[in-house]
């Protein structure tokens, strides 16, 4: 099976290039991460990429696979068009090969104050929450910060420092929707203006690529509705 992988090491390369690799034997059920590890272990130790859990929960190995962002560890190689084009996540600076500098992405995440804010004194036991209230967090809390969504979003590409992007906005929604959180008003106010939230044009690339099946566009629209309600 043939792979064409984006290579760039700023120490030695003037510009990026694509390198071809071939694996003769492909085990049934092999995931793309397995293929990359095989390449690294047996062909080229210098090929660099992030990875950890290997089962789609840690969010380390987001990359662009045949033009679409995804996690290498849960992308079966069977069925991928050859040579498989593997590039770093688009829209973020490349550190080396498939490794991007994610600082802007994390900065946007931190910007939405992604933590529960409760002003009242805490009870001695848990804060109560009904199953229905808890259900509202489903589809929001499961995000693994892999950045597949934000780096597939044209609005984020154009204004990564002004538009928060789908991942950060999903987190904003996760706390706005949490019945325990007492900072809803501040959270909505912080998203005012033409960029932070409203640069989302519902292109829905984020929904298409999210490896966890989440729907940031819906979360963003839910926030927008709340903003409109608040303005009235």
């Amino acid at each position: 099976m043939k792979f064409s992988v984006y290579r760039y090491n700023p120490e030695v390369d003037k510009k990026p290039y694509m390198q071809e690799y071939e694996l003769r034997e492909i085990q049934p059920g092999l995931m793309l991460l397995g293929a990359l590890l095989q390449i690294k272990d047996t062909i080229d130790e210098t090929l660099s990429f992030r990875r950890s859990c290997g089962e789609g929960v840690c969010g380390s190995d987001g990359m662009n696979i045949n033009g679409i962002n995804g996690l290498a560890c849960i992308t079966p190689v069977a069925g991928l068009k050859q040579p498989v084009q593997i590039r770093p996540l688009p829209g973020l600076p490349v550190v080396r090969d498939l490794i991007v500098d994610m600082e802007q992405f994390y900065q946007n995440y931190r910007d939405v104050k992604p933590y529960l804010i409760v002003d009242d004194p805490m009870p001695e036991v848990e804060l109560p929450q009904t199953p229905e209230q808890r259900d509202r967090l489903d589809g929001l809390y499961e995000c693994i910060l892999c950045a597949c969504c934000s780096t597939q979003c044209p609005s984020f590409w154009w204004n990564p420092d002004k538009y928060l992007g789908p991942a950060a906005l999903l987190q904003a929604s996760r706390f706005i929707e949490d019945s325990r959180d007492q900072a809803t008003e501040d959270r909505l106010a912080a998203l005012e203006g033409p960029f932070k939230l409203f640069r989302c044009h519902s292109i829905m690339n984020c929904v298409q690529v999210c490896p966890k099946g989440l729907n940031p566009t819906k979360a963003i629209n839910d926030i927008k509705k709340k903003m409109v309600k608040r303005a009235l």
Partner: protein
Amino acid sequence: MPDLPRRQFDSLIIGAGGGGLRAALQLSNAEASVAVVSKVFPTRSHTVAAQGGMNAALANVLPDNWHWHMFDTVKGSDYLGDQDAIEYMCRAAPQAVYELEHFGVPFSRMDNGTIYQRPFGGQSQNFGGDQAARTCAAADRTGHAILHSLYQQNIRAKTHFFDEYFAVDLLKDQQGYVLGALAFDIHNGEPVVIEAKTTLLATGGAGQIFRTTTNALINTGDGMSMALRAGVPLQDMEFFQFHPTGIAGRGMLITEGARGEGGYLINADGERMMERYAPKAKDLASRDVVSRAIATEVREGRGCGPNKDHVMLKLDHLGEDVIQKRLPGIRQTCITFLGIDPAETPIPIFPTAHYTMGGIPTNRHGQVVVPVKDTPEEPVPGLYAAGECACVSVHGANRLGGNSLLDIVVFGRAAANHIIEYLADNRYHRRLDAGSLESALQRVQRWDSKPTGDGESIAVLRDELKAVMENHCSVFRNEDVLTEGVAKVEQLVERFKYARIDDSSAVFNTARVEALELENLFGVALATIHSAHARKESRGAHSRIDYTERDDMNWMRHSLYSLETGMDYKPVRTKPISVESFPPKARVY
């Protein structure tokens, strides 16, 4: 002394999983300056993969109290757990859960708004009576929910993170105080000396010593090996947990919660096999018991599939609603990796390397303790450990499901509280010893030079190590297999001296990281197989077919393995803090 960039903090934490982050939060909230060094971005740490939940006697579903939880944990440990630490943990558990909930963890809920709890293996009411329901869960993503919430709270608390820095070795002075660590920035290879009055190791487990494991690729026992190199022995390393339900041949974890929700195991005859091994608890017996049962079924020819090499976990009778509500993550994992939906088809499973019960010896305050002359447990000044890399020991010879997330949170917090006291008594940084920095630097610099000669690659040596450990130190063990295994691991350690890497770049050099990780794996593997070889009894996860019985007279004691002096032993702390000791009894489920 080499002229390197230096950073100074009150406290250094190595590792950003649940243990490290819980400690960091406690310290930041106490206004200590805290540096957290992690080789991955914090939410990539392996706590994220914990599924089923966290034990605490909240009694939200069935009657419960901490004392029953304590009994189950002592029994589960096969009486090797230290009962003062176990009492401390079980008493602290409800508060630890409530704190997490206040930090924002999205626990699943009961109809009355309290936290949802599910039954897990080895849990009982009333000291061995009916099944309890003690495991607090956020669907089957509890670790993810906890890790993200703890990281988020650390953002709020403004903890200082060194993300994607690799910690190389501990730094000490002549008096043996631990004063921080040498690390390097993986992005550019630049070394940095992080000076700290206290250092907490929270680097997690070492499942990567085995070929088939539920553990992430980053679980390479870095902190354990740092401790070994600093002269601290590792404790009880022969006790490695094989989780009964890893996906056969692949290793992905299927949570014990699947059986907690009503799933059960069947063999090739379609028989509900656990009824024969644990008539009362059945599929919710302790993990060591269930893993041995599966391995026995396969050995005796009742395995499933064309190679009769696994058994089946049946969930389809639970109905799609329960599976989607309570077990959505493992459902997705099965669909992704096996192409089957557990709501329709049973899952092929086999025991899979999962958890390092042993580790860096500590007391219940998280202080690392070593034998000094006649004192078995003398604290190493300035050094702490918590979580899977540590051995408190609350898990003894076998950990109960749901006690690991509890362990990291309770002892991460306890260690931080002790560190706060230590900082009050030790206000100033002590001077580093040049020697300990030199040797740490050499370990990194070994891989800097252009490759020369024809040494073996890291991948070849690592694959061989993992195969040796799997073949020689698995669920069932015996003298011949272990003796051979010890020799093979030692040969590999020798070959590693001549290993080479083909990447000398300073920029995000993952080959170099993997080389340093393999060195750490060797330390852990040596400790594990030597300790297993030395222990001539069967207890908990350590099952010897040549010594099938537990031998309390000779072996109710902790193993200690050190690089310099090999095996040593120390007594189990059988005296709890405030209640009567649970004396060893035959262990039946």
